[in-house]
């Protein structure tokens, strides 16, 4: 069965300048209840991988460098 990739705008942004995933940090990935964040090994930074967000904010609250910003998902905004 054919499938397509449909782009969606993601609510969580990570400031790659501030992110210290290259030093081994995975805090935001660890705490997210929906498991939607991941580390991009090539960039050494966290990113949002799945558009399945409860806009609950542990990722932003627990990030040690303030690299995470949670927006309200577009459909709700």
């Amino acid at each position, binding site marked *: *069965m054919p*499938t397509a990739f449909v782009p969606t705008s993601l609510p969580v942004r990570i400031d790659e300048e501030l992110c210290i995933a290259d030093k081994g940090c995975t805090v935001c990935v*660890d*705490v*997210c*209840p*929906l*498991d939607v964040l991941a580390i991009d090994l090539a960039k050494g930074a966290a990113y949002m*991988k*799945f558009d*399945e*967000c*409860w*806009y*609950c*904010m*542990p990722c932003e*609250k*627990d990030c040690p460098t303030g690299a995470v910003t*949670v*927006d*309200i*998902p577009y*459909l*709700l*905004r």
Partner: protein
Amino acid sequence: MRLHTHAVDVLVVGGGTAGPMAAVKAKEANPALNVLLLEKANVKRSGAISMGMDGLNNAVVPGHATPEQYVKEITLANDGIVNQRTIMAYARNSFAMIEELDRWGVKFEKDETGDYAMRKVHHMGTYVLPMPEGHDIKRVLYRRLKRTRVAITNRWIATRLLTGTDGRVAGAMAFDCRTGDFHIVRAKAIVLSTGAAGRLGLPASGYLFGTYENPTNAGDGYSMAYHAGAELSGIECFQINPLIKDYNGPACAYVTGPLGGYTTNGKGERFIECDYWSGQMMLEFYRELEGGDGPVFLKLDHLAEETISTIETILHTNERPSRGRFHKGRGTDYRTHMVEMHISEIGLCSGHSASGVWVDEHAATTVPGLYAAGDLACVPHNYMLGAFVYGKIAGESAARHCGAVSLAEIDQAQVEAESARVRAPLLRGEGLPPSQVEYKLRRMVNDYLQPPKVTRKMEIGLRRFEEIRQDLDRLWARDPHELMRALEVHAIRDCAEMAARASLYRAESRWGLYHARVDHPARDDLNWFVHVQVRKTGDGMTCFKRPIEPYLVSVDEHEQSAYQNTRIPRDSRRQSARETHSTST
């Protein structure tokens, strides 16, 4: 997908609110026991209280209420359909639990003399205890888990329970949503505490994860208990909440009400007497929205600056802290704007209404060795403190049970069937994406089950859910994360079918909007003053009646009206709005 087998004494499935308490209490009851807490997300930030809580909705504090008064209040709030023994067990242990949490470091609001600063929100008694600094609660629980040396696994998704040939619980099966590994956990006793079925209806926004409940709670526990042969109860008493429109989170009237906020219609008139969430209150809310007097708002703009900044601090840092961001995006300032409200899609949750796995006052389900606690367990209006109290009861019961039994034998046929079901979506090279099937299923739930309930519609709904059952065999997952979503769709479908069948079975109306049946508009105590149970039998999903146990606390005829007359008569509305205005500013 590698296969691992483990053996423990007590397995707790779900590490949100009730789960950590159950694990700690099982271990404290007998430190020699091997206790494993198995969690889909990460115990540090999982569940409904991920970011803390605004307050206790149902604290029974001496000097403010007695256990007997509380039992009566909830009996009335739930239109009589309660097993009072379970509510009494909660009420009697409520205060000791507050004191214990307080000792552990959870912060509750106190007055100048150091007493708990109780607030009145319910119709009759005073049960709300604010927690303006309640954001630390998960950290406090995590410390206790570490101190008592409970073993923890994160990112494991439990999918089915195992039962032995003698019918008692034998273990659970789970997979790791990062590696895809399959785990069999043998256990002497299991506590299920996987929370509400929060992804049942589709939010009006269309966003699958824009739910009131933490969407990690997809109803997995309801489905697991059902397939293990446990009785479920009150499924037809849906959860529907009055929420901030589109944001779909609480506004939250229990915080703002005692400070002078209230719900109004589009004309600025107050139309409900009391903001305590009950089915009757929701019906009035629904009528106002659907009638010409909508939309409905939460009104705070008459309050003093000091009060408003207190409200902002609580609502924008606790529980659902992104509320502030949402209001900012829309240009809503509590000082100058009312907050537009709406009613939510349906869910199943005994924490708020009454749908859950049937338990007795020891948290025991009808399957030997299986206990349940929290939103998943049928103890009506149990909320967060109820999750803690029943977590404790379940943990202690499970520890006791371990003393009397050995591990049940595992039935290999069950293991093989389940590992095949779990593996299947990964093995398909193509098929239906889980998100699409979930969207369609939940949209059908809205179309056919959202109250007011119509017989013909629910019958069609059942046919659609049957068709979607066929689609489950075409679900395709490209990685273990998508596999988690695919298996959640199985659970959501089970919950949808239970919701339809239980609603069709109860041929009367009860609980206001929660079970408003257009074809049976009246309450019928003669035939339906009973619990409606759902259970898996050889014939599939079966509904039957369970009689109400004799009450411990009797309810007088005249008291019954407290929750039935929640609407403020039209001619006295303006005046009541004025009165509130003058007393609160």
